[in-house]
């Protein structure tokens, strides 16, 4: 118990770092994921190919490898960026691939008649997507999207291995001050449980309320 109380400031600021990573990466991955999904269903073959290549590449790469490149390689090749930003870029690029797949699945659950009616009204591709399909796709997209974001929250801990200031590194701080790393890590695990389980409950509830028969 005193491991937690003695290091409470550190514990809370580190979880703040985790949440900061999570929120920024979540928003960035959502935007990029929707753009990628639009690219994958667009009438332009080059865009479809680029989107497919991107998603296939990043879904089959370990996140550790992606962060490895960004944390250790990016500064060598390009320019300096603080570790936090590098981690955010890596996490967003990785998660965007999964968001894209989820949104694409959601687009395919919207009844064809909707898109056909929109076309009959003379709406263009971006208009059909933006005004008709995507708003309806939100229903079937939300539960798996929540799953992907929960996975992102847990993946932020991978950044801990690259000295990004977040919860996974709490045990090191405790170790330096001579505390028990076991207790420290158990507290970190408990912290994540407290964060993740409400999100999981929310996701289950969304799934029950909004599930769409495919």
């Amino acid at each position, binding site marked *: 118990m005193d491991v937690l109380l003695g290091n409470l400031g550190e514990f809370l600021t580190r979880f703040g770092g985790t949440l900061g990573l999570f929120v920024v990466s979540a928003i960035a991955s959502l935007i990029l994921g929707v753009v990628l999904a639009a690219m994958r*269903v*667009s*009438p*332009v*073959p*080059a*865009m*479809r190919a*680029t989107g497919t290549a991107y998603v296939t*590449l990043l879904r*089959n*790469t*370990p*996140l*550790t*490898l992606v962060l*490895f*490149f960004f944390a250790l*390689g990016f500064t*060598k*090749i390009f320019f300096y960026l603080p570790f936090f930003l590098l981690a955010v870029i890596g996490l967003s690029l990785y998660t965007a691939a*999964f968001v894209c797949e*989820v949104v*694409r*699945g959601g*687009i*395919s*659950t*919207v009844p*064809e008649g909707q*898109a056909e009616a929109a*076309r009959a009204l003379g709406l263009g*591709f971006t208009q*059909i*997507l933006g005004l008709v*399909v995507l708003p309806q796709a939100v229903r079937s997209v939300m*539960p*798996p999207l929540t*799953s*992907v974001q929960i996975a992102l929250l*847990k*993946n932020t*801990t*991978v950044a801990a*291995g690259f000295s990004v200031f977040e*919860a*996974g590194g709490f*045990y090191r701080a405790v170790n330096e001050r001579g505390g*028990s*790393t*076991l207790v420290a*890590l*158990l507290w*970190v*695990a408990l912290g*994540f*449980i407290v964060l*993740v*389980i409400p999100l*999981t409950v929310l996701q289950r509830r969304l799934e029950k309320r909004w599930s769409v028969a495919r």
Partner: protein
Amino acid sequence: MSAPTAVLFDVPGPRARARNTLAGVATLAVVAALLAVIVWRLGATGQLDARVWEWITYENVQLALLDGLVNTLWAFASGAVLALLLGAVLALGRLSDHRALRSLASGIVELFRAVPLVVLMFLFYYGLPSAGVTVSTYAAVVLGLMLYNGAVLAEVFRAGVLAVPRGQSEAAYALGMRKSGVMRFVLLPQAVRSMMPAIISQLVVLLKDSALGFLITYPELLFQAQFLGSNATLGSPLIPVALVVAVIYIALCLLLSALATWIEQRSRRNPAVIAVAAAGRPDDA
């Protein structure tokens, strides 16, 4: 392109064709520019010089990378087998008729799905020594993989068993079989067959997660990459080694994913396999 998404745009007329071609050219230009910038920067920082690539020719280095690959595959294989076993046990627990067993199994599954895999591995490798128990990196990696993926696979197995048409179990009970017999001979075989793609997808996730062993110094591929990459006598070839390792990882995962897709397509054509509603990979990532 799938049928629903094909209706998103009309057959392009001349203006739309011109616009689409323009958009296509613009996209290709952007992608080419990005790749060009990357290659230029790689060249400018000396990552494409022969000096930083000569490590490939050294037999020691090749053996070291092979060693890393073997360790990765070892962790993957042990983790996979144990996770499948644990998943089956937990799934049976969640499907049990006894409330106590059901709650216990559900609690365990929820617990291990909520804790990040990294924290689990850290717990085993950095945490247990405080309690006097030392664990090898291999054991920590495999234990972590087993617990997390076992919990996820439990959900997959459970979904598979619940997807088997009710008539199957009703007929089995009518024949006088008891619960264990129904599970063993009727439900589980059909469940596993229909959930094969989802199970293999989860195994791909397991393979990717074995790379997390790098964070606790388990000598798998990525660890070897960093070790070799910071070796000054080889010219500190961090980027080249990482690129080669990336190719190896992506190839392995693509192979497994292709296996999953092939099985899914085969089972779709086979009327005996129950089609379970698209088991995507929502929980991985």
